[in-house]
């Protein structure tokens, strides 16, 4: 498989390498039909695209499921391998539990996290084990329990604040922006806020507009915050642990549809670096940057792309603030073409900032304008078909890569 890639790829890649890159930098702009219009591949809500595109995709043959299937093999066959298998929400819980065991200052607060076990069962069983003071059920006031978390953090506790849905944390925006992000700075370093704010976000299955918020775009300009997005059970557990151990306030974005992903993770203690991106699939031809659920759409598209003879490099950026420009930069220097696939809305999303960062730092290495696929600037509709069309689908990713590589 890899060998076939190697033979197919150089035919396209070599023309872009080395001394020819200058010639092709503007050449590709002139040649591509979308070049003059701008570097955006606009996806309209009815599925039409500004680039000549396969109309078969409208309505019919869409790949709706980008969530990895559950267990494939029986339990017996997997016993011999090291590590243990679990679902993503269990991985989060395991990470949380290990940290609570390790450090008695870690506590959890949020709505229904205690006896109910959390709306997505991330904190199930913790209240029974640690008592309902350490796993605290709060009344419904996001601004206030986030504020409570800030106050507790200044006293040395390490609270993990759960928003039942990320969208509700908009009610906590004041505490997150004016206090979490700021108090370490305005107090001259006297008070630290080692708080973790987490919750499920992203577009789910017909959850309606208010429950389908993508807050990473709203929070990204708050100074003092770190933001990470998990996408697999491995990095969910690792990021949870790293976030709890961090001295800075960290917002951990989980995705509603990824909680049931299954993966085998190591038994030993491990953490994932908060500022690091994850190389999902190395490649030579085009860099696809993505995070959270879109990773799975991209991987699905990657399969199609590989079959068509492309060699995409897929990076799950994981760290939304700050961006891991080291990994991203190395990739851009290698492939010279970037496609960003995000679930945020077009305006002011993570893709917009990432694009600016790449242009600022790696302009000379780019052979084509950076393409960014994102959701439209509309509230997420309830109707299933409309909801599908607000998200970037694998077929659009394939088309974008084809356009980039012309």
């Amino acid at each position, binding site marked *: 498989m890899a060998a076939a890639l190697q033979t197919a790829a150089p035919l396209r890649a070599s023309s872009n390498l080395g001394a020819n890159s200058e010639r092709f930098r503007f050449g590709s702009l002139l040649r591509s039909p979308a070049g003059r219009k701008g570097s955006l591949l606009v996806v309209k809500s009815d599925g039409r695209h500004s680039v000549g595109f396969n109309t078969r995709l409208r309505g019919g043959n869409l790949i709706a499921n980008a969530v990895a299937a559950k267990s494939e093999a029986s339990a017996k066959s997997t016993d011999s391998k090291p590590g243990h298998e679990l679902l993503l929400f269990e991985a989060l819980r395991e990470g949380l539990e290990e940290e609570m065991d390790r450090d008695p200052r870690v*506590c959890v607060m949020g709505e229904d996290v205690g006896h109910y076990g959390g709306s997505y069962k991330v904190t199930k069983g913790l209240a029974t084990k640690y008592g309902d*003071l*350490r796993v*605290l059920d*709060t*009344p419904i*006031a996001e*601004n*206030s*329990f*986030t*504020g*409570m*978390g*800030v*106050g*507790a*953090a*200044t*006293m*040395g*506790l390490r*609270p993990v604040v759960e928003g039942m849905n990320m969208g509700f944390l908009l009610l906590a925006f*004041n*505490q997150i922006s*004016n*206090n979490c992000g*700021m*108090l*370490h*700075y*305005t*107090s*001259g*370093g*006297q*008070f*630290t806020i080692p708080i973790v704010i987490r919750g499920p976000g992203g577009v789910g299955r017909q959850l309606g507009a208010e429950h389908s918020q993508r807050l990473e775009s709203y929070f990204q300009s708050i*100074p*003092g915050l*770190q933001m990470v997005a998990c996408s697999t059970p491995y990095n969910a557990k690792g990021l949870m642990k790293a976030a709890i151990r*961090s*001295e*800075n306030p960290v917002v951990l974005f989980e995705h509603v549809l990824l909680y049931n992903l299954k993966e085998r993770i190591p038994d030993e203690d491990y953490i994932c670096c908060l*500022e690091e991106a994850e190389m999902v699939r190395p490649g030579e031809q085009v860099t696809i940057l993505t995070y959270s659920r879109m990773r799975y759409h991209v991987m699905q598209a990657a399969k199609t792309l590989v079959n068509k003879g492309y060699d995409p490099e897929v990076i799950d950026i994981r760290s939304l603030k*700050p961006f891991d*420009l080291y990994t991203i930069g190395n990739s851009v220097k290698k492939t010279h073409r970037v496609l960003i696939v995000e679930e945020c809305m077009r305006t002011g999303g993570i893709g917009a900032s990432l694009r600016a960062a790449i242009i600022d730092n790696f302009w000379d290495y780019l052979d084509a304008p950076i393409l960014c696929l994102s959701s439209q600037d509309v509230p997420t509709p309830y109707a299933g078909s409309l909801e599908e069309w607000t998200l970037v689908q694998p077929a659009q990713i394939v088309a974008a890569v084809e356009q980039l590589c012309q």
Partner: protein
Amino acid sequence: MAIWFLRSRLAHHLGQRIGSLDALKLSSWASSLHPWIPPSLDSSDDRYASKFLRNPMDLYAARRFRSAKAQESVPVVTDGSNQVMDFPGGKVMFVPELRFLAESPGERISCYRILDDDGKTISGSSFQEVSKEIALKMYSDMVTLQIMDTIFYEAQRQGRISFYLTTIGEEAINIASAAALTIDDIVFPQYREPGVLLWRGFTLQEFANQCFGNKLDYGKGRQMPIHYGSNRLNYFTVSSPIATQVPHAVGAAYSLKMDKKHACAVTYFGDGGTSEGDFHAALNFAAVMEVPVIFFCRNNGWAISTPTAEQFRSDGAVIRGQAYGIRSIRVDGNDALAVYSAVHAAREMAIRESRPILVEALTYRVGHHSTSDDSTKYRPVDEIEHWRTARDPVSRYRKWIERNGWWCDDAESELRSNVRKELLHAVQVAERMDKPPLAELFTDVYDQVPSNLREQERLLTELIKQHPGDYPPEVPV
């Protein structure tokens, strides 16, 4: 006096019983309260009164408007036709009469006071005794606070600092409440409580450093003047938005409860702050979680230009405590001894019983809201003058300590001139000191300076090197 003791005992009694609806035990307390009945429904028939009194949950919901008189008995009439139904939260009794709880009780909640306007203790009053040493420290700190406010306000008017906010009229609240706390109690202030810091040992030089934002400021020049903060003195850095500190205090109290420390969290806010959403949720949380926190409301009559009549329609802030299940007290904020006693008792209750307490101190904001405000635009000048002179808490307290033979005119003038001299010197020193270096613009955003901020720092340093004339000289690069 007796009322206060009685109320706390009864309230304690109630607090233990409220979940169990033991009607028999409550009836003695219950019978001493008279819920207000609308005139249209009032009848001299005793049955109406007794129906209200029989069910404890009804009573808890009914407004207290008269002070409780001990053991006043009301005949309880049994009426077999009334039914009790089990709803979530407890049993509730049905009444067939259409009756609304009044929006306001006939009488306002009474106010705890010890010193009268002449500085004489009111006969029969009960209060926490203060030693001569504490009493004198309280007075000298109140005077220091007054002078500090005057001098810094003048400094702002002279353009030497950009902003200031005075505490004139609320010195008793600041100092007396601080005196009743210990250094282990963590304070979450709004912004009109520098007296608490002063009491705890923040020096005049440290105050000046923060106002001038020089390199010795603990906040490293990052906040406006009067946004003091000191982790050493357990005083949380002031944050401008109103009432955001109230849930912080609940969180800190939660942490203290977990650690089983013999300390409480204290938070201050004004009458305007009680309108913020954070206030309501924080009080609710504190009550549900049973954490040791004191909510201190400085009801000074004005939220910039909004008088309390336009801020809320309830009987001040104290009446709201009961709505959240919080023990509360109203106290005369210009009476230093009353504030001291109330906070002392509140602290003890909060820690011993792990419960929140709401203290509302009635006072008056004599100064303008801040240096950006001219309050004569929205309130009469003679009102301000009346409160500045006739109702001044400092002079009232002074009369009391003079009566005790602990103070005299000579001591007064000596204190005032010393403080003034020290302050002026501190201001001069602070003004001349260098500002924090440029590097401090980028530190403490995170625990370690990340690469993007280092890059931004490098760019800025280069820019300043290229155009030195365009940048202020007293900021070291």
